């Protein structure tokens, strides 16, 4: 299937954590949930240009490190001020110990 890009190895992301992934001049955030599933979103907060990979993952939520903007990283839904715009999410799959994201 087109557009799948290897983002990292499974072991690169701790449980309930996030890392930054840069590709093609864009920045993404790769998440590992507490139940060991992987997810991907745009790497910057929709409020201001802050790297979400520097933020805190709590259950299904990524919290922006700058202003406490919170998103559900599984759906991209903005959870209230100061974020008003949802986060773009990307399909993710794991193959042979690698995390791949589909960048459209």
């Amino acid at each position, binding site marked *: 299937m087109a557009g799948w890009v290897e983002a990292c190895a499974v072991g690169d992301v701790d449980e309930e954590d996030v890392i930054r992934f840069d590709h093609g001049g864009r920045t993404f955030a790769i998440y590992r949930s507490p139940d060991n599933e992987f997810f991907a979103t745009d790497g910057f907060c929709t409020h201001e240009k802050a790297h979400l990979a520097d933020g805190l993952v709590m259950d299904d939520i990524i919290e922006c490190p700058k*202003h406490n903007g919170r998103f559900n990283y599984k759906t991209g839904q903005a959870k209230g001020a100061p974020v008003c715009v949802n986060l773009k999410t990307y399909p993710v799959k794991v193959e042979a110990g690698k995390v791949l994201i589909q960048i459209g």
Partner: protein
Amino acid sequence: MTTTGTKRDYSLVGESTRLAVETGLASAEWYHTDVPRKVMKELMQRSDGPAIRDTIIWIAAILASAAGIIWFWGTWWVVPFMLVYGVLYGSSSDSRWHECGHGTAFRTRWMNDVVYHIASFMLMRNPVQWRWSHARHHTDTIIVGRDAEIAVMRPPDLIKAALAFTGILDFRYSLPTLVRQAFGKLSDDEKSYIPEMEQHKAVIAARWHMVVYAATIAVAIALRSWIPLVLIGLPRLYGTWHMVMTGLLQHIGLADNVTDHRLNTRTVYMNPISRFIYWNMNYHVEHHMFPMVPYHALPRLHELVKHDLPEPNPSMWHAYREVWPVLLRQLKYEDYYLKRELPPTAKPYRGEFHKLDITAAAAE
């Protein structure tokens, strides 16, 4: 320290705003001390425990001192109770507002929100407006024309700064602002940082505040007593001094229009009582560099990063003594500021991070 002189325009929609955007000072990349991800993640972890404990103490002390005011009303014994109540209501509410606004005090979101709204009311601050103004303060800390929360502008108005300790000026600003907002009018500055979709919420919040104040006045009239007003509203006057005493030190006399919190923000060691009232915001450089670290973790963060920061002022008294001559000089030369020295273990101030000529003569 002096820099090239231009008159500052503190409006958020004026010439300084345009310059800040054009020069890249607005929404810029700021200097951060390196902290390993695992350590930062651990520091950012939320917990309800410390804030629940502190909030129980805070509310219990508020209720006890309020009971003392009511019991001893009409005697001199009321004075110490008013002193305690006033500071708890008019000053410590500021740090509760602040930490809960950041969403870091409690792990549980609704707890942050409840305390945030109560503290906003105590402070006569519109909770919607101030949430956005504080977000801007963190994006553009002491960037002239962008930061809505610059407490002492240049050249400094020392009479105004002194009067701030009485709460009179803030009261005169805050109450009419809430009234205006309750009538649905937001200023151009407010509209510049409150998104359009949030502006109606600011109006509704102001109306709720007005309803409570109107009810308080009605009760005072019905009871023919000052006590309701002494307990609700007036502490914003007689109890605000501690908030001003600690809060002014955050940025006063330091650089503006820079993108390194070590240059425009101050950490001051304080006594345990003030730190309880202030919820550790005396570690203010650390807070600005890493705003998602909860107040109870700031002392640990301070120990981790202090090698990279200017030496903290050992006391509030020391900090005020240090800044006083700077303020006096700013009366004549508004570009003058205090550049605090870094220890040898720190990464140097980076010229490319900001537009200041950091080799110029400085008040060091």
